[in-house]
């Protein structure tokens, strides 16, 4: 090996603790980026493949009852490539050993064969057979939640009659990747599941022989979805069509798209910020490290090594650290990514996750970190080789010190000599001091970014389920029902209070913008459902006009006073102009509100209700559950508690797993930076400090000079880090807004406290290590070889 390269290895080994710290910074940045990006890339690819292989339909439509012959007419629509007619029915279930209400959706499948569209992946068991009326396939998550296997039995209340069904298979389908019960926002596999039943058996049970009430279709490449939807509506309208819709608003796909959007944001923004911070810190650390080598650069140049050769030497040195960190980062990142992939697979239920290492992701991560390192080196080397070797070999000329600002302000009496040294040193190198502050501050900021989210989520829960939605149980009726149903519910044992709800599906239009949602009817003086203003204060429901959530108002570009066009999509399908009365704050979901009787007048089918909100007595819960299940007009009941639990689960999945990793790596980066700052300061000033020791200063006194500077920089960096972290978190919150959620920016003292503690902890540990080095300072050795 050449002596030049041997120098490289020995130098690396001498500064190994710093090299390792640098490698760890790179590792943290690369691992975060590789893990998160890879999971996202893999998830998206898996989803695409799954949709394609299992023929997820492009459009859907629901009708009351259409004869099978209509199918031919639908198939003739230009642009339609395949049609699958089906019978579907919401159903209440009784699962052995589970006392709470369980709802399900029965979907018909052809006997003995796969459907044309929305095919089933059979995890276990088989398809339903012709002539067996009681056979069903269960969705895997539902089956697992209740430990049901092929051969298990469960009871369904089918069209008012109890029927015992036998499980013959466990299946998955792209149509119900996420099974979200209508009226809720999050999956709850214990209480809601999809079941597949033979077409003939299901049609017979619901009087749908030779007919269908649901249709799915796929398009030929290049066909216009809107044109097809329009034609489908025209054909189905006479049969009670409720409006065909595309895949984009299909509940499972919509939910998964929203979740993927959140994931994509967190898996792109956060790791990029991490990688950028790691790269920035690497740049600073490396450039200081090389600046220290100024004299050796001079010697090498004096021997006749060219500036290029010297530059390459240091580039190699730093590349060893950066590439070692990057390699470890890739390994850790791939491993973490696979781990996260398994977590997601547990939830999303693809037949299998196609987890692949994405080459562009890895190349980006490695390129960015090593690029930053090399740039850091080149900057420092360029400064060093620009000097003539004679100058470079000499220690840098004593810099021009000045009295510090504090001293010039006449406060010098307040400072002893060591404090003066600290301040002058900081003032002498303002750029370097600033960069160190920014470095420590950015590691503090990414800590905050990694952690703030759980507080935002708690705030969402507090507002959504503490202020706005106060019920214990949310009951949905099979269809619009008379208000007498509320009186009946109030009379049930276990019900302390009941209020009506009414949801009417609508399309809202303002200028050329439109949005499909449901208007919620709120009775005047409602207690259980509060409409809250943008200051999170409950406001009474306005007697006239419509209340829009902030996000919906943004989408429609509508403000209070504007008139919007409401197209009701049920009953007589009326169209009305309604003024916007107020804007409401809502973190989850996106709805519109109207006074209940006003809504009913607009829809035009009398004083109807579509559900009820209940306050319940927990002691009578079981009896109430049983009573509700036996009422035929009750389609489903959802408990508030469950809602909160599944909200938390969803959040944990999409955000908190990531933030845990981020926090960990932010800690690593913080330590790497502070430690290197301390070590480099030591190397830069060992001569000066040794001279002071020779002059009779104690170890504690010289430690104060060096570590006092570090402490001062850290203290200055903390508020800067808080500020940077808050700004970055605000940006993240903005990026996370989807149609499904919006998150408030809540930064608790706890988050700042932990971030500060990690940074201060890193400083203390670094200080202890540096202090031990100071105690071993070789006084004679340091002074001997230099003028």
């Amino acid at each position, binding site marked *: 090996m050449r*002596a030049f390269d041997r*120098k490289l290895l020995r130098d690396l080994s001498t500064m190994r603790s710093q090299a390792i710290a640098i490698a760890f910074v790179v590792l943290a940045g690369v691992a975060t980026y590789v893990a998160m990006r890879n999971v996202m890339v893999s998830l998206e690819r898996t989803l695409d493949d799954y949709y394609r292989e299992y023929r997820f339909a492009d459009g859907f439509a629901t009708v009351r009852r259409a004869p099978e012959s209509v199918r031919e007419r639908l198939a003739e629509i230009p642009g339609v490539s395949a049609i699958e007619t089906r019978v579907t029915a919401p159903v209440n279930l009784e699962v052995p050993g589970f006392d709470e209400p369980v709802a399900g959706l029965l979907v018909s499948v052809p006997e003995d064969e796969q459907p044309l569209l929305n095919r089933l992946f059979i995890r276990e068991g088989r398809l339903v057979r012709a002539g067996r009326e009681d056979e069903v396939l269960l969705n895997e998550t539902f089956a697992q939640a209740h430990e049901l296997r092929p051969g298990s039995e469960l009871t369904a209340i089918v069209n008012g009659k109890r029927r015992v069904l036998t499980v013959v298979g466990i299946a998955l389908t792209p149509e119900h990747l996420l099974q979200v019960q209508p009226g809720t926002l999050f999956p709850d596999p214990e209480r809601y599941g999809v079941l597949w039943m033979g077409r003939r058996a299901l049609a017979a049970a619901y009087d749908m022989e030779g007919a269908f009430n649901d249709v799915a279709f796929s398009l030929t490449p290049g066909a216009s979805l809107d044109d097809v939807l329009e034609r489908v509506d025209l054909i189905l309208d006479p049969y009670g069509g409720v409006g065909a819709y595309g895949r984009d608003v299909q509940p499972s796909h919509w939910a998964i798209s929203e979740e993927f959007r959140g994931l994509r944001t967190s898996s792109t923004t956060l790791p990029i910020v991490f990688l950028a911070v790691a790269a920035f810190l690497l740049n600073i650390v490396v450039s200081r490290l090389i600046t220290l080598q100024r004299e050796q650069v001079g010697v090498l140049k004096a021997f*006749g090594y060219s500036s290029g*050769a010297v530059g390459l030497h240091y580039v190699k040195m730093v590349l060893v650290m950066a590439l070692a960190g990057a390699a470890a980062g890739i390994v850790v990142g791939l491993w973490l990514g696979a781990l996260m992939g398994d977590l997601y697979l547990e939830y999303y239920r693809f037949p299998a996750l196609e987890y692949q290492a994405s080459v562009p992701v890895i190349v980006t991560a490695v390129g960015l970190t090593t690029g930053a390192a090399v740039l850091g080196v080149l900057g420092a080397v360029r400064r060093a080789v620009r000097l*003539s070797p004679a100058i470079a070999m000499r220690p840098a000329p004593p810099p021009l010190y000045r009295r510090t600002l504090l001293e010039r302000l006449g406060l010098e009496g307040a400072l002893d000599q060591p404090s003066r040294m600290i301040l002058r040193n900081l003032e002498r190198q303002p750029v370097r001091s600033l960069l160190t502050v920014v470095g420590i501050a950015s590691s503090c900021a990414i800590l905050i970014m990694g952690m703030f989210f759980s507080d935002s989520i708690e705030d969402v829960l507090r507002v959504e389920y503490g202020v706005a939605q106060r019920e214990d149980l949310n009951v949905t009726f099979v269809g619009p029902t008379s208000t007498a149903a509320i009186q009946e519910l109030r009379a049930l044992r276990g019900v302390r209070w009941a209020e009506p709800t009414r949801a009417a599906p609508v399309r809202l239009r303002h200028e050329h913008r439109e949005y499909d949602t449901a208007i919620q009817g709120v009775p005047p003086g409602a207690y259980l459902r509060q409409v809250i203003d943008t200051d999170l204060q409950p406001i009474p429901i306005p007697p006239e006009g419509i209340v829009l959530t902030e996000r919906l108002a943004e989408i429609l570009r509508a403000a209070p006073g504007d008139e919007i066009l409401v197209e009701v999509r049920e009953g007589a399908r009326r169209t009305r102009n309604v003024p916007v009365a107020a804007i409401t704050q809502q973190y989850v979901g996106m709805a519109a509100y109207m006074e209940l009787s006003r809504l009913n007048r607009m829809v035009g089918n009398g004083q109807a209700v579509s559900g009820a909100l209940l306050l319940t007595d927990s002691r009578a819960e079981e009896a109430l559950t049983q009573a509700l299940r036996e009422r035929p007009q009750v389609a489903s009941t959802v408990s508030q508690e469950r809602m909160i639990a599944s909200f938390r689960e969803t959040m944990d999945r999409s955000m908190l797993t990531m933030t845990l990793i981020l926090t960990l790596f932010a800690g690593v980066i913080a330590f790497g930076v502070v430690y290197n700052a301390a070590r480099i300061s030591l190397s830069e000033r060992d001569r000066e400090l040794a001279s002071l020791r020779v002059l009779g200063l104690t170890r504690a006194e010289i430690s104060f000079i060096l570590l006092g500077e570090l402490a001062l920089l850290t203290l200055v960096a903390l508020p800067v880090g808080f500020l940077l972290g808050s700004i970055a978190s605000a940006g993240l919150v903005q990026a996370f807004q989807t149609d499904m959620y919006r998150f408030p920016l809540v930064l608790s003292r706890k988050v700042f406290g932990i971030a500060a503690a990690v940074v201060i902890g890193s400083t203390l540990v670094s200080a202890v290590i540096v202090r031990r080095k100071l105690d071993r300072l070789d006084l004679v050795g340091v002074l001997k070889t230099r003028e």
Partner: protein
Amino acid sequence: MPAEAVFQARGVTKIYEMGEVKVHALRGVDLELYAGELVVLLGASGSGKSTLLNILGGLDTATSGTVLYRGTDLTRADDRALTHYRRHHVGFVFQFYNLIPSLTARENVAIVTEIADDPMLPATALELVGLGERLDHFPAQLSGGEQQRVAIARAIAKRPEVLLCDEPTGALDSETGVVVLDALERVNRELGTTTAVITHNVVQAGIAERIIHLRDGLITRVEINPRRTPAQELTW
């Protein structure tokens, strides 16, 4: 006296700007160095001798004037040309050795021989300065005199045409200093390398063929030394 001039300097000045102060290190120096001779540049601290040596060695550039090395003007050379010049023609010895601490004696020499055209073996160079036994010691394991002899070995291993030494004994006691000067003398004699040694010590000047006196950035006197004293007989 050999007639061939290796260096020819005319009107060389050097001004350093140290922060807000301008230091006139050289104020117009004319000088010749001849092939194979051993000269001593003698002067007090601040007389400009180090600056002159650095300019001759291509470590620094003159503010004005010309320095010809075998007809090539070093003051007009760019960094690339100066690098080439140092790599192939000049050997340096510094007061503070400037060894690479992470390399052994042999490797410290090798780092220069690896980029030279016709070097001697590192071990041969070290034997020439009497360090054949300490090839694999690190700088920290060597005494000051030994470190300086490693530096000399490193400077001569590429068989340079000129050897420039800046206070080579400045950090050493007299006994060790003699050993170092003896090594320089031997190199000059056996390899015929043109050698310039800086010192402020009048006694050491006795080893030179010519003694160039500097003061305040000017050459005040060039003295020809008819009776050279062998280094081993010097005491100070």
